[in-house]
């Protein structure tokens, strides 16, 4: 609530200021959650460039705290709409689209050929055959590992899931957590589930499951947990993961107490702050489980939308077209340290993680958003709690799946 209040205060202040601005300058109000240092720098640059290209438009930014924004957006969309707002792709934008709070921007896509340039992210921006916003960045998920630990244990990077499990036995014998995670905020375990499901059953099955078309008690879902049990039952996962945050688990990897971590690319900054370098931090694509399945990856996408109540729609569309451009995305994602969604954009080749991620995603068969963006909120919450419980009590699997099935009947 505090965050919302400061946000609302900023908003009122911004509106007061815009009232007194010079008449021929058109204002574009932009509400963002980019309060973290890198995103803030990237957006400052983006907006400065846009204003340089469009000197008659004045972009007024209302910066919200990243977490507080998730509550604030529901208030400002209905009460005092900006012209542009940050949000996320996939099912996370569905409530706003269905409630008529976001504008259809299909014309921006068509006029600028974005269906082609932003092809990999198009599906996640589409509801009812229309596009509802423009993606500007995404990042890959995969397994980050400590090369020094691998060397000390005498194992090599696994090519298959069986090799990965075999490595775990070696790490266990050496007193090292094969896989670490910090599930106190729940979402890190969803990444593990997504990958196990996409590698065991494939992308289409995973999408059907998160869309509520498949029962959680289905044998194919149980097969996913059977693979997961290979990690959990022998104790290959960090023991007290439910009590720690993802950053605490990252520290375990940095200290060499853990070998692998299923994470998103944003964690690289944390690993490096802990003292790791490109030499001893490794990245690999999650290994194959069912042979021959087309490889799908997680790539959560961040987006910009035009709220239904926007006052300056013409300039807002101009801004969306601008942010979709290859050169703009190249520059912006260079600062963000993430991947551009425009396929004609380039990434910094000296960063091994970005170039690996770019290769991983551009060669992927399909991209998932992430469990809590693909599944509706109620299912996502119950699912992630179920995953966490399974990682502590694998013997309760049947009860957990029964419960998730009950939520599925309720949530869709």
């Amino acid at each position, binding site marked *: 609530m505090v965050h919302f209040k400061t946000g609302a205060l900023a908003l009122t202040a911004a509106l007061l200021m815009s009232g007194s601005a010079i008449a021929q300058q058109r204002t574009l109000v932009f509400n963002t959650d980019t309060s973290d240092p890198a995103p803030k720098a990237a957006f400052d640059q983006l907006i400065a460039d846009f204003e340089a290209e469009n000197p008659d438009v004045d972009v007024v930014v209302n910066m919200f705290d990243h977490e507080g924004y998730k509550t604030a957006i529901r208030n400002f969309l209905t009460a005092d709409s900006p012209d542009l707002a940050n949000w996320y792709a996939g099912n996370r934008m569905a409530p706003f689209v269905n409630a008529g709070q976001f504008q259809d921007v299909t014309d921006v896509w068509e006029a600028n050929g974005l269906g082609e340039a932003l092809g990999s992210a198009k599906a996640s921006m589409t509801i009812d055959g229309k596009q509802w916003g423009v993606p500007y960045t995404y990042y890959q998920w995969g397994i980050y590992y400590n090369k020094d630990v691998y060397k000390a244990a005498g194992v090599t990077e696994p090519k298959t899931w069986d090799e990965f499990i075999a490595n775990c036995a070696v790490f266990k014998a050496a007193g090292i957590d094969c896989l670490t995670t910090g599930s106190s905020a729940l979402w890190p375990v969803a990444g593990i589930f997504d990958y196990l499901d996409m590698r065991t059953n494939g992308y289409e099955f995973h999408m059907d499951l998160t869309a509520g078309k498949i029962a959680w008690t289905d044998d194919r879902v149980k097969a996913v947990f059977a693979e997961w049990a290979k990690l959990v039952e022998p104790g290959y996962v960090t023991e007290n993961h439910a*009590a720690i945050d993802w950053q605490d688990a990252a520290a375990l990897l940095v200290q060499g107490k853990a070998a692998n971590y299923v994470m998103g690319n944003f964690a690289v900054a944390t690993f490096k702050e802990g003292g790791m370098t490109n030499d001893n931090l490794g990245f690999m694509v999650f290994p194959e489980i069912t042979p021959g399945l087309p490889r799908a990856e997680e790539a959560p996408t961040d987006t910009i939308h035009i709220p239904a109540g926007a006052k300056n729609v013409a300039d807002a569309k101009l801004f969306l077209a601008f942010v979709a451009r290859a050169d703009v995305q190249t520059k912006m994602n260079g600062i963000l340290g993430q991947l551009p969604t425009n396929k004609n954009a380039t990434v910094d080749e000296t960063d091994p993680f970005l170039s690996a991620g770019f290769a991983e995603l551009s060669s992927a068969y399909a991209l998932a958003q992430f469990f809590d963006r693909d599944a509706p909120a109620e299912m996502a919450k119950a699912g992630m709690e179920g995953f966490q419980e399974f990682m502590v009590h694998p013997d309760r699997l049947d009860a957990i799946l029964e419960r998730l099935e009950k939520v599925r009947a309720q949530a869709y």
Partner: protein
Amino acid sequence: MQAYWKRSQRKLAPWLFLAPGLAMFALYVIIPIFQSMAISFYDWDGLGEKIWIGTANYVELIDDDAFYTSLKNNVIWLVLYLLAVPAGLMIAIFLNQTVWGIRAYKSLFFFPFVISQVVVGLMFSWFYAPNFGLFYKLIETVTGDGVAILADERFVTYGIIVAGLWPQIAYVMILYLTGLNNVAPDQVEAARLDGAKGWRMLWYVILPQLRPATFIAVVVTVIGALRSFDLVSIMTNGGPYGSSRVLSFYMYEQALSEYGYRMGYGAAIAVVLFAIMMVFISGFIWKMWRDETER
């Protein structure tokens, strides 16, 4: 008009003075209660259309494991939180002496009540933290195997209640310290002459005089236990896998958290919590009413 005012001035004046408070109370407390009740019959995400679904939210609640976990935890909270009353009394009696520097000791004991619940929660989560927490290390040294209190469904609620008791005991202690100031010294003197001391003195002479303080202490503790929210939110966020939820936290989770926005369901939980609170509150009010009229 003038005549009417003159005639009923004494009758009207209290209501006039009460009016601002009553208006605020109605606007911020009474009306929202009925609004919550109304919302609990709808399916509403806070943005779109409200859909009337009758009692479906309550039907779902009856079949919801998470609801029973929260309810059970609320009962545990209620029972264990009441330990604050005897504990606060003991400390108050211990501190109720005149030695040099006693004020400093009193303020030190009162200290946990002054700091924010959020800070208390953070301190205790570090205290319990696996691998480096003081408590974890202690258990590890004694038993050879550390226990991560906040990650273990068996202990997590108790761990949070202990954190909650720390400031609550201080609060009760202050209530009793002021109560002890009003204990009549002549009665204590008389009891002493009659040979009362120790437990008998406490039970038959001191405690009856502390009844008003005890009443207030029980009221604030019961209500504090039922509305416990901040510590759960700070220390575990309801986890691991929802096993430390209490009703107020579950309500927040369903209605307002990142994965929530089921306003109707949240409101239904709120109504149930309100009903439970009403049992206690009506009891307290009834007792107060009886005490007032008996006099």
